[in-house]
């Protein structure tokens, strides 16, 4: 880690000014990902522009019935905020399934969207990696790939986007508010992260200098029938091998609206709208969920150590869908719920 300048910006405009004035500037929010990357010599910075004071870390109710969450609010504040707990409990659960209490206390919502993959080779400065060093190769394809993607991979990168929070945001169809040198723009959540394709070095559509200022959640919060499930190698403080965020709107047990997003399986949270649409008008049961799962996992392809994820993801979609019928059965840490009494 090289020495860097540190500047505390008071406003978004000042932050952007500082960013464009200095070469090699980077924004820092909670620092839980960036500082690690600097320490491992996987990223460098001549200047860190601290954005934590550019705006109040709050949640506002919107006129359309949705809410606007500050990008600078911490993951913990967001998860425990009454508006989120009551109206978007799926988001709350997903956040609390991630990282550790200490990290969630520091990590911000904006930073969570921009965290980088946990691919072992990406994290080892001595290994080739197309994401870190474009054109150098992808050893994960033939190497240790148990945690890697099964959907949307390319011959250049099979990494997974590791966030939990974002799986819920994908299911909730959040909208990202961005402020940049060329003004403001909004981006639909599904368009924010990208697939690796020929350019695995680019994780998302954020342009240099742009700041995420807020995340808007539409009114539909699926607070009656929702569930988040995270499958991993230990009960906390581990990234998902497979995770699922599920939300239903039901009328007399019939699905009116369905959302299913997968984490831990691709370079972005994975949703297949067609599969959700086909659920409308159906009951929530093993068969309907199984059919949806097959559709969602269409084209899934495993590598030497991660083929199990395909079957696991299917079972996870079914279990989590059934759990959404009785969200109170969910367990801390998004462990598999016991739904035998359903």
């Amino acid at each position, binding site marked *: *880690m*090289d*020495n860097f300048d540190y500047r505390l910006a008071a406003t978004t405009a000042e932050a952007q000014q500082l960013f464009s004035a200095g070469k090699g500037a980077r924004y820092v929010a909670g620092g839980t990902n960036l500082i690690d990357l600097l320490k491992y*010599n996987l990223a460098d910075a001549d200047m860190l522009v601290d954005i934590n004071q550019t705006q109040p870390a709050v949640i506002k109710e919107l006129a359309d019935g949705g809410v606007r969450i500050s990008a600078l609010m911490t993951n913990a504040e967001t998860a425990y905020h009454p508006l989120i707990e009551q109206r978007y409990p799926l988001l709350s659960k997903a956040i609390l399934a991630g990282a550790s209490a200490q990290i969630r206390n520091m990590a911000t919502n904006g930073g969570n969207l921009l965290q980088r993959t*946990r691919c*072992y*080779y990406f*994290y*080892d400065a*001595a*290994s080739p990696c197309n994401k870190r060093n474009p054109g150098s190769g992808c*050893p994960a394809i*033939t*190497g*240790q790939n*148990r945690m890697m993607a099964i959907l949307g991979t390319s011959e250049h990168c099979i990494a997974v986007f590791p966030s939990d929070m974002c799986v819920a945001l994908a299911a909730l169809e959040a909208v990202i508010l961005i402020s940049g040198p060329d003004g403001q723009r909004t981006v639909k959540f599904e368009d924010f992260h990208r697939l690796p394709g020929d350019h695995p070095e680019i994780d998302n559509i954020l342009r240099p200098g742009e700041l995420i200022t807020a995340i808007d959640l539409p009114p539909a919060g699926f607070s009656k029938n929702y569930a988040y499930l995270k*499958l991993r*190698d*230990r*009960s*906390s*403080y*581990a990234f998902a*091998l497979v995770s699922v965020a599920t939300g239903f709107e039901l009328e007399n047990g019939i699905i009116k609206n369905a959302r299913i997003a997968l984490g831990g399986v691709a370079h972005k949270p994975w949703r297949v709208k067609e599969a959700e649409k086909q659920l409308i008008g159906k009951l929530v049961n093993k068969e309907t969920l199984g059919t949806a799962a097959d559709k969602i996992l269409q084209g899934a392809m495993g590598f030497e150590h991660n083929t*199990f*994820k395909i*079957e*696991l993801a299917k*079972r*996870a979609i079914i*279990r989590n869908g059934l759990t959404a019928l009785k969200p109170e059965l969910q367990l*801390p*840490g998004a*462990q*598999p719920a*016991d*739904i*035998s*009494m359903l």
Partner: protein
Amino acid sequence: MTEMNTTIGKPISRLEGFDKVTGAAKYAADHHVPDMLYGYVVNSIITKGRITKIHTDEVMALPGILEILTHENRMSTAWFDIQYADMDAPSGTVFKPLHDDRIKYNGQPIALVIAETFEQARLGAAKLRVEYKEEKQHATELKSNLERARPPKPGMAFLLKPPPPKPTGDFEKAYQEAAFRAEGEYHHSAEFHNPMELFASTVLYEGKGKLTIYSKTQGTINDQTFIANVFGLKYQNVRVIAPYVGGAFGSGLRPQHQLYLAAMAALQLKRHVRVVLDRSQMFTFGHRPQTLMQMRISADEDGKVTGLNHEGYGETSTYEDYSEILVKWAPMLYPAANTLLKYDLVPLDVATPLDMRAPGGSTAFHAIECTMDQLAYQLNIDPLELRIKNYSEVDPLENKPFTSKELKACYLQGAEKFGWLDRKPEPRSMRRGNKLVGYGMATGMWDAMQLPARVEARVTPDGKLHIKSAITDIGTGTFTIMTQIAAEQFGMAMEDVIFDYGNSALPFAPIQGGSFSTSTVGIAVVNASKALKKKLLKLAIKASDQFKSADVGTVSFIKGNIVYGDHSLSFVELVAANGAKPILTRNMGYPHALKLRKYAMAAHSAAFVEVEVDEELGFIKVTRALTAVAAGRIMNPKTARSQILGGMVWGISKALHEETLLDPAMGKYMNQNLAEYHLPVHADIHELEVLFVEEEDKIINELGTKGVGEIGLVAITPAIVNAIYHATGKRINDLPVHFDKLL
């Protein structure tokens, strides 16, 4: 005698506990002195080959960089290989950091960047460009390199780790003809040492070849002699201090390269130097070896074991023969007329493996006890019944009695307390909600050892008792327990006894490992106490007529006084009578080797485990575990219980979590940090129970102790694997049992 305040056997809290939890305890990297320099290690990024160029000039130009030690500019060190051999060195040639341009393993230290600040040194290390001539043909994976297997080379290490016993009977015949047979192949990937405290040495340069070293170690004298031998210093000029050690588990049994490099830097620059390894560098030295085992067990109609075949392949480096006691255990536990044991090493391009908590034993019992479990199902009897049927009061291998063996009590009391009888014999027959429930059990064993050590006992003018030993306390409670033993010997309050330890200038103690410290140093404390009592008595007789006819049998020692009938003299008075000179004695403690040759010595345990398995998703939870332990006299049930609990958590880790991910093409481990090298978290640990069964051992040593450092780990892993089988009907022999293996 009745008023003597016995301290042994009481659950006394660790004396240094407060200092540790408040941060007052200073570990090796916490000693600050003015003008200290910082060294940061640079590691090889290739697995095999040579260094062709190190661009030191570029880094030397950075601010604050004072020196970069490499094989090209390092000072000369000892000439003969033997001078590098530490107390735990296996046979072979000890690895010498910065010795030459050769790369023997990935992560090998190849340079030390020394700077005014830690950050400058770290940056310099990151920027150092190194050119290599890489040999692409290397081998790091055990399983795919078995053709290299060969027996360990003989050497000094055979003394503590002898090769496997010779075959008895005719195993193959017995196995073919047996009524019942069970077999399995068991694989363990490497496990890396990750105690909480990182490896660190702070070396103070005291001028003229004199060094004071604060180091993370399990042997102050081991490090002292190593440094003195390697750098040609006088022993008395090297002092190694390590009163607090933040966990070690075997990692500190050998001087690690941070010590070597820090000492070299201090001597070469004539400055104080600190070197701390970072967490990923904890994956660049000794580790529990990758191991592959084949186990076959045969039994007759009655379930009596007739044949035992245990064969193991362990990983070692290309330069040293690290070996473990892997295959002797089964025939020491179960009597069998036909035994066939084999142990081979597979030299690979890796750092030499290193002892890690219950080395060999914790690996071996996985194979033994899971194969026994299979056998029980074949025989259609309770796994516990099979153990009892094959119970042996003697060590069948050498036909020697045990100094004590209360394993049966572990089985019976453990089973009772756990509720083993509620177990339905059929696999997949127990359920809770949508989960399968399984009960599993296993046996554990660990050698009870004792080595020689020396202790000083001294009474000072204030009447306090000082006990001195170079031994460390690696978190096991040694400090507390030695204080207890001495307090008991003199009938004194613990507050009046000062145990001075963790310093190479103090009387000799061997490295702290193998669960032998309590017996080793404890017996020396007893001997020194006895000698000191005699001295005190002599002084009392000289000082007071009232003691004229007193002798060892008729005096007692109570609360800092020597008492004879109605008369007493305080230690303060005795020292005054000695011309205010402290009264002291130094004595050795030895095992009774001649007597003990006739006996087998071991601690035993039985573990009982309940798991819940959500089969659809493969989710495994160890809901309950109980370990019953027979380990002689328990000196302090509180610290002992902590040891067993720690072992049990480790066993859960071994069974379900901990895994190093090797990339054989690169020859390196890919998950070198604690985010991806999964140790269990609190949420993985549920009900744990420890039960010490009564075990009186009048033979093993005067204290009747066996040590509890490792026994808690041995049985728990196989018990979990057996419970998973009972729950699911699936037997997974490749650890850890990740849930995808159950899908």
